[in-house]
């Protein structure tokens, strides 16, 4: 959202609330004349001031700075380019107009599309489970076997009235034993279906952790604040030792702050999810101690967000640098970064989302992403300029790393870290592509990609 629109937006909202400019300025804690400049679009607004203005206007930050609208536009754009809707003649160019004139309808459409995607993914996961789940197959077999035993014994008792008392007792005992075993099988089956039903919001602990980081835009101000001032307690220079020391210090000094976040949030509900979230947040805390934001932020800007230069400057590994870059505060002229980590099998094992970058939650991403090519040239930083079917352009920067020595004759293990940034944001970094850099036409994942003629397609798009 441009500076011009932001000022106008503040003025309109203030008037709608019936506030004077002086009153708004007082609530935000600045002079009335400065507020006047902001409202007339003569001054920009960012950081803490933007946040307190949003509070004073009773708006969420993303509503005030237009991020919510941008997300809605991206979401509608994605709907317009959904392959199965291709025949409907969706007016992709009119998404902005729809949001402007009928914001409620636009939000409803986006919410419906989102829930449809979640439901489809959940249905596919459940169908997979029902068809191939060994537990289910075996339990059904056990249940039918128990029923067969009960039925056979009961029929004998009914059909052979001449049985002596000893024989009758034997078949009664069989019915008794088998019906008890049958109820145990029934209970096990009920418990299984309870478990299948339970995760109606997210399906895996990893999803829960991602939801937590998404909800906080990858940044935990409480941890940043608590870590600030503790960094000088890491009194060693050796990179390996620094990391260990930071982890100890985080556990001792920042554990309470992390637990407080976990107690208050609403995204992580299951015990495995909580354990995983705690681990992720302790990792965040250790990284915050190794590279406190007050020094990391300015240094990152000065070095053009160069991951290798930053790794050198802070004696960190590239992975930690990438994680710190995703936690940069939302300010003007500070690029926003997304982060993906993939293993050698191509599974995305960690993800910090980036607004507008559509990445699959339940499948591998597009095989053309440099995320999957970087392992061909380990340790080299590779840049890729990409365009999505929606027209959105991003710059990806990936680097594969060996996870350690494994010994002679044993395969080495590689992980790939990938940073993602929008092309406009990339211009603030050393990764800014020149006009001549080729643009790779990629997609989110085959299942949701409309590029029908792509030669790298491995599965058909979801069509009705």
């Amino acid at each position: 959202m441009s500076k011009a629109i932001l000022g106008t937006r503040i003025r309109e909202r203030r008037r709608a609330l019936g506030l004077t400019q002086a009153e708004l300025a007082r609530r935000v804690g600045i002079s009335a004349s400065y507020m006047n400049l902001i409202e007339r679009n003569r001054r920009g607004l960012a950081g803490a001031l933007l946040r307190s203005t949003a509070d004073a206007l009773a708006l969420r930050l993303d509503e005030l700075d237009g991020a919510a609208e941008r997300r809605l536009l991206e979401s509608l754009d994605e709907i317009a380019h959904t392959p199965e809707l291709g025949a409907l003649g969706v007016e992709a160019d009119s998404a902005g107009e729809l949001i402007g004139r009928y914001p409620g309808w636009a939000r409803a459409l986006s919410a419906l599309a989102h829930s449809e995607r979640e439901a489809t993914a959940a249905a596919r996961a459940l169908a997979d489970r029902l068809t191939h789940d060994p537990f289910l197959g075996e339990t059904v077999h056990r249940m039918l076997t128990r029923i067969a035993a009960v039925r056979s014994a009961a029929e004998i008792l009914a059909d052979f009235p001449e049985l002596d008392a000893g024989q009758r007792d034997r078949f009664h005992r069989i019915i008794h034993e088998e019906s008890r075993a049958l109820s145990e099988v029934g209970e096990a089956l009920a418990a299984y279906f309870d478990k299948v039903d339970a995760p109606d919001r997210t399906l895996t602990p990893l999803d829960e952790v991602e939801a937590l980081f998404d909800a906080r835009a990858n940044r935990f101000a409480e941890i940043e604040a608590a870590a600030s001032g503790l960094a000088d307690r890491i009194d060693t220079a050796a990179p390996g030792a620094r990391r260990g020391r930071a982890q100890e210090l985080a556990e001792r000094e920042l554990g309470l702050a992390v637990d407080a976040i976990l107690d208050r949030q609403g995204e992580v509900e299951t015990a495995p999810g909580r354990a995983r979230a705690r681990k992720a947040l302790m990792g965040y805390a250790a990284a915050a101690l190794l590279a406190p934001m007050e020094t990391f932020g300015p240094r990152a800007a000065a070095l053009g967000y160069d991951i290798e230069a930053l790794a050198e400057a802070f004696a960190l590994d590239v992975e930690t640098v990438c994680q710190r870059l995703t936690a940069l505060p939302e300010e003007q002229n500070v690029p926003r970064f997304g982060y993906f980590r993939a293993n050698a099998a191509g599974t995305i094992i960690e993800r910090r989302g980036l607004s507008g970058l559509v990445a699959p939650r339940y499948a591998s991403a597009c095989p053309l992403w440099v995320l999957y090519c970087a392992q061909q040239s380990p340790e080299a930083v590779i840049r890729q300029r990409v365009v999505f079917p929606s027209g959105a352009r991003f710059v990806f920067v990936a680097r594969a790393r060996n996870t350690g020595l494994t010994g002679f004759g044993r395969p080495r293990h590689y992980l790939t870290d990938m940073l993602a940034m929008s092309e406009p944001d990339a211009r603030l970094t050393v990764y800014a592509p020149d006009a001549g850099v080729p643009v790779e036409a990629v997609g989110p994942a085959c299942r949701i990609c409309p590029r029908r003629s792509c030669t790298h397609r491995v599965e058909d798009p979801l069509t009705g």
Partner: protein
Amino acid sequence: MADAPRKRVLLAEDEPNIVESLTFLLGKAGFDVVTEVDGQAALDAVLAAPPDVVILDVMLPGLDGFEILRRLRADARGQSLKVIMLTAKGQREDRETALQNGADLFITKPFSNADVIGAVTRLAEQG
């Protein structure tokens, strides 16, 4: 007819209560019954002294029912044996596998006693 030797049935099933009921029923119907609870033991017993009818449960410890059937059909002594497979209802793949591997009949659990006795009697008369 009265002097005809009793026909022999081998029942390979590891659920003791089903074994008990079927042994009782087959005995009442005039068959001699041999039972085995282990897959390999069942295969050995069938090949050593081929019975008139074999009833094979799909899920057996050792060798499963399908594997026993395959090995029987691959052996000269087992090619013309009458074999009934016991499968679980709804397990369509099991039924298809049973027929592909040369079962004469399959009976799904939960079965009625009349189904089992009727099937065994019919196959024994053919043999």
